[in-house]
């Protein structure tokens, strides 16, 4: 059986109410992201990248057109359905958004505990997975550090480990390498590539980091809420 395409968007429009005025932020978006595919989303600020990313991640219900996540229609979807779907999505935010009162390992574990499957496997199995994940981002020696004791780049890498820990079917990343130096930036996108290739995850990444553009299967450009062009890359 062919796996459902993780992201299927067609004719998607979206408006924000700003000071009583209805402002269109997304116009007639057509986009598909297949399993195992990495799509990089670029565009000037205010072009609607973040809005599109939040909608793909089930953080907002779609207003008009069609947005299917793992085959489920999100137009007018209720809160509970969005919450449930988000459990299959890994998010990496521009700000690390770590819980300051949890250690690196606990922060990553919070990403696992949202899944009842992982909870069922118990604390030890989860801790093992978290340690492995932190080692992959080069933080094996910082497992029990609190975020306040970590550098900006280290915090971002903990956030990446948190998003990757549960091997999500869809990974959404907003400028994930902005806080990282060149080398760790490369390491991180290598992890993304690995997740896509080996686990068949679909990945959508907003980035302006030229150093990592080459890992994309496709680069799409958003201009004033509309997809301007779609450039196929050959890897």
């Amino acid at each position, binding site marked *: 059986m062919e796996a459902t395409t993780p992201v299927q968007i067609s004719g998607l429009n979206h408006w924000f109410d700003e000071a009583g005025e209805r402002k269109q932020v997304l116009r007639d978006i057509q986009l598909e992201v297949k399993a195992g595919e990495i799509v990089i989303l670029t565009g000037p600020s205010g072009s609607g990248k973040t809005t599109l990313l939040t909608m793909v991640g089930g*953080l907002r219900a779609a207003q008009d057109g069609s947005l299917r996540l793992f085959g489920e229609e999100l137009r007018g979807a209720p809160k509970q359905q969005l919450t449930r779907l*988000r459990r299959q999505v890994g998010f990496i*935010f521009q700000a690390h*958004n770590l*819980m300051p009162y949890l250690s690196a390992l606990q922060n990553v*574990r*919070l990403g696992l505990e*949202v899944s009842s499957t992982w*909870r069922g496997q118990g604390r030890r199995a989860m801790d093992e997975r978290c340690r492995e994940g932190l080692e992959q981002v080069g933080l094996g020696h910082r497992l029990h550090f609190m975020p306040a004791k970590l550098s900006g780049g280290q915090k971002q890498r903990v956030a990446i480990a948190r998003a990757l820990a549960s091997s999500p079917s869809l990974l959404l990343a907003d400028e994930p390498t902005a806080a990282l130096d060149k080398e760790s930036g490369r390491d991180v996108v290598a992890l993304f590539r690995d997740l896509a290739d080996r686990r068949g995850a679909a990945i959508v990444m907003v980035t302006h980091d030229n150093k990592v553009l080459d890992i994309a299967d496709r680069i799409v450009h958003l201009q004033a809420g509309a997809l301007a062009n779609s450039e196929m890359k050959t890897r």
Partner: protein
Amino acid sequence: MSWTSRTPVAWLQLSHKPMRLLAAIAGVGFANVLVFFQMGLSGALYDSQKRPIQEINGQLVMVPRRYSNLGEPLNMPRAQLVRALGVDGVQAVTPLYIGNVDWINQDTRQKKQALLFGVSLDNPALKLPVLQTQRSALQRPNSLLFDSASKKGAGPVAQTLAAGQPYDTEIRGQRAQVVGLFQLGLTFAADINLITSSTNFQTYLPEQNNDDIQLGVIQLKPGVSASRVKQTLETFLEPSVQVLTIQQLLDREVAHWQRNTSFGLIFNLGVLVGLAVGAIIVYQILYSDVGDHLGEYATMKAMGYGDRFVVAIIVQESVILASLAFFPSVLMAMGLYQILVRSTGLLVTMSISRAVVVFGLTLVICGASGWLATGKLRRLDPAEVF
């Protein structure tokens, strides 16, 4: 399994800032102590009202139909009490005379309200042992016993007696000599309690008809059911009198002070204020906590945690605060009770049932204000994290 594998987010978040946690515990603890203080005081005051009744030397009492409380004596014919002797199972009856008199402090010449009890020396209506030991002294005219727990303004009675001297004063213009002490404790009814013989009672209150008594004590033979005798008595006694068990008399007394006076309202309000203070403190703490960590909660929601999960964190925090604050506040309240006992002579004691009630109330109040504080969280849009 799945429960124990959860990270204790609520606890980790609270304990991350220990000073803030301590301040929160102190706040909730303060509210608890306030509630304990009100409950302790009201409980003790009601208990104090019960003390004289608990010393009644019998199983049933006969009082006038319109009886309301011990401090407002009403007359009834002694003949009614004597009729009780005819009922099977009744061993003896004895009157308790009660009257309000003015007591004069010999040092300051100040007048004080006193409650004077008159008992038959052959079969006293009160159980106090001093009535046996001082029996011969009480047989003298004008002699009486003085409650050592009376207000200090009564004069240095206990000190005088301790020095081996009787304390001389006057009641209603009659010479009165204190020959001994007893202890019943203060009631709302009077600042001073006095006991004398039934004969002396007549001298101090000469206007009283010799055939009238204020309360009749009915003593039963061992093993006789009080309720059965009460039922029998009710079949033939005049409707102007009623028969009560000691427990019923106790309940009447407490109910009188709770319902017919402002005491009940005042104490209930005090408890309410304490609970409100606790609720406001917890709400304030958790509300600002929610505000400070809004981004983190939005992140949790984005990660796929539902409203119930994030709301449960806050409610758990409120329960943790209530629990942590509880034991220190019990200790503080017990210390406070000691101070109250020493300064007022009231019987303020901590009981397990009171502690349980206060803990239950604190939990409910904290949980509720925790839930209220999560309004913002439930409306929080996870898209705000970007």
